[in-house]
């Protein structure tokens, strides 16, 4: 089994029937199949939340860490072994709420990893509190009069930080999403794919029906190299919601700049036999 290129996991899925996550799971599996690497060369990293359970359901190496802390763990794993294809599967709360600071600084760090944010605009696993991306007015038990904070704008913030790959996917369009994930994996650097994901249990606003009226795919008229156009598309929300690659630009990656690429993967460096004596001499 291990060693086969099958990304099917035997672990029973615990999502609600109809959850948008099933679509993302399928898209991720098909993108991985398309990529063609062995599951042993793939590392899925997540925090905690419904989205963050994904690594259990797609067969590969995985690190299911703390709520909000997927990105630092993923970044370090990539530094340790630059040969791994690192994919982060995280939620809007995980990545933009608890993990917001790591979101900012890992865009700056620009390690080669693909970050899929399952953006259901809600805290699913904890039973329906507002998330950073919840629409103003959304009523929850904690916000009985409706959310009053402006929504977080992940795509615009990523663009503001000149993230090299900024995309939006939709969980119900698996094929398109699979294409985005594949493109993200092929992009050398931090690739953000904010993926709109209906939560059938708690988000009664942003439903499949709501999305299907609004979602459209960016066509060839959109030039992902055009940052100003990208900013407009990143902010388009309401009656029309674009999906696709909003912005792409090749920036030197951390691996390039840190010199990691000039040496064998750190994981292959010997641990024993290090000659520390010369360093001691500097302390004479």
């Amino acid at each position, binding site marked *: *089994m*291990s*060693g086969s290129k099958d990304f099917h996991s035997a*672990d029973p899925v*615990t999502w609600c029937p109809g959850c948008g996550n099933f679509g993302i799971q399928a898209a991720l599996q098909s993108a991985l199949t398309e990529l063609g690497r062995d*599951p*042993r*060369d793939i*590392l899925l*990293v997540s925090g*905690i939340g419904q989205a963050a*359970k994904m*690594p*259990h359901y797609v*067969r*590969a*190496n*995985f*690190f*299911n*860490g*703390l709520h909000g*802390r997927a*990105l*630092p*763990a*993923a*970044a*370090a*794993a*990539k*530094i*340790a*072994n630059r*040969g*791994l294809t690192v994919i982060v599967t995280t939620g809007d709360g995980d990545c933009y709420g608890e993990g917001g*600071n*790591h979101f*900012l*600084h890992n865009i700056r760090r620009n390690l080669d990893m693909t970050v899929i944010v399952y953006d259901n605009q809600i805290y699913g696993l904890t039973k329906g509190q507002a998330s950073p991306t919840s629409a103003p007015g959304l009523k929850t038990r904690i916000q009985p009069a409706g959310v009053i904070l402006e929504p977080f704008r992940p795509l615009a913030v990523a663009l503001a930080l000149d993230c090299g790959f900024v995309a939006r996917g939709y969980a119900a369009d698996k094929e398109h999403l699979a294409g985005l994930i594949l493109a993200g994996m092929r992009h050398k650097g931090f690739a953000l794919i904010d993926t709109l994901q209906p939560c059938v249990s708690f988000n009664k606003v942003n439903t499949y029906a709501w999305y299907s009226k609004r979602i459209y795919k960016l066509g060839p008229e959109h030039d992902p190299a055009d940052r100003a156009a990208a900013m407009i598309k990143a902010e388009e929300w309401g009656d029309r919601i674009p999906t696709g690659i909003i912005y792409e630009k090749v920036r030197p990656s951390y691996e390039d700049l*840190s*010199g*990691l690429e000039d*040496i064998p993967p*750190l*994981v292959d*460096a*010997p*641990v*024993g036999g*290090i000659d*520390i*004596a010369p*360093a*001691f001499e500097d*302390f*004479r």
Partner: protein
Amino acid sequence: MRKEISIRITGEAGQGIVSVGNMLCRMYKDTGRHVFAIQDYMSRIRGGNNFFQVRAAAEPVAAPRACADIVMALDREAVSANQGALAPGGALVLDAEEYGIPALEPGWRSVPLHALARDAGGSIYVNAVALGVLAAMTGEGLEPAGAAIAKEFAGKGREVIGKNLAAARAGFEHAAKQLKDCAYSLPKGTGGAPYLLSGNDAAALGAIAAGCKFYTAYPMSPATGIMNTVADYAARYGIIVEQAEDEIAAVNMAVGAGFAGIRAMTGTSGGGFALMCEGVSLAAMTETPLVVAVVMRPGPATGFPTRTEQGDLDFVLSAGHGEFARAVYAPGSPEEAFRVVKRAFNTAEKHQLPVLILSDQYLAESYVNTARPDLQAEAPDRGLLLGAESDPEAERYAHAPGGVSPRLIPGRSRALAVADSDEHGTAGHITELAEVRIRMTQKRLHAKAEALAGEVLAPTVYKPGSRVMLCGFGSTLGLLREAAGARADTGFVHYSQVWPFPAEATRSALGGSEKAATVENNASGQLARLIRRETGIGLAGSLLKYDGRPFNIDEVSAWLDKEGR
């Protein structure tokens, strides 16, 4: 001739106090003496009052004196702030004209430090002038001072070295003439411990020697020194040093790197460690090796950023939610720090758990001349790892002796490597089952704790069962050694590993003693409580100090004179 001398150089931040302090250390060390030096500085970049105090002696020394035989005051404020620290019969050197101090008190000596510095090229050379003065006052030649200058400014080019040498010479010549009556010379020693190491330096060297390939931290005094030194060697040893956006990132990066198969470390002080508690718990749950240096400073909150305390023992022993095994080391000297850090990596990997190293500003930033440690000691042992040829169905969390299931490395093991922060079964998938929980808790907590207990570093015990027994941990080793060494009826127990707690060794060390007391740089006697909890032994008392400063040997002696009867 005196057996030892303590010299305090003091001035404002920016006057090069540390630099001259280091040169002074080298001057004595390279002439066969033993040296020990502490740094005392404020949390500011310019101004205020800082000092560097060097104790040099023919015999090994590893703790500061209360007072200095020579106080070298580089600015006016330094005089008033440090005059109380002048030992009887000592000399306080100042620049009366420059500081506008017309009347000298007994023992005060004026030298035109600043005028000489200006002559040599500018006020910044005042520290070099001071070095020259001190070389003369202590009967050293100008040569050792010159050698120290050459070493200190090796990277700065000839001109800098030249100007510093000129300044030192001016100071030396002035003092040789004007301070002839000051006789503070030391016998030549046999020395033989050539390296001048701080605790932070030693910890960094230990990490490098252990094969640490990733050091990540968020800057925080007094832990930053470790990162600085690792960074100095990063390129040479193929190490990535990554400044994290915060301490939470640092600890989660360290865990992620450990999971991915490399040796990784982070370091911080109490406030940063407070933010890492969840990450420590993550390492425990995922059974990922993690090494964290906790370099204590006085709290709570921001506290005294640049000062010292041993106030976080309790905190570190139980930091992180949930129950799990951990190892906590507390090295007592730079030499121990080097060795213990190497050992920490082995412990973390062999037992697959978080290992914490307790240090403090005193240990981290004091210098002692140190012999070359045994570089072969604590040779890397990575514990059980499954490679490319292993069972493709190996389960990451399979139950095994000592609670240790062989590790899997993503991309390097034949089986898939997994880690889960939820409760999980042997295959690493989330579980809700009571039976699984019980066995996994026994694995992470009971089995590992038992295995760890078998490998605890024995405390250093000196004269067990003496009438008076002092107990300490971490930075106070040198102090205990000297205090107990000076008294026939006094012994000590020093813990360089505080968890698992060596209860048996403690009982046998303290058995028969009349008065056992802890010596702790904190306000609540945390070690005494720990000893009571773990052994049932109620100690007679504690010598506590919590003003942000390290103990000095004189106050410990005075306390023993009073309380140790």
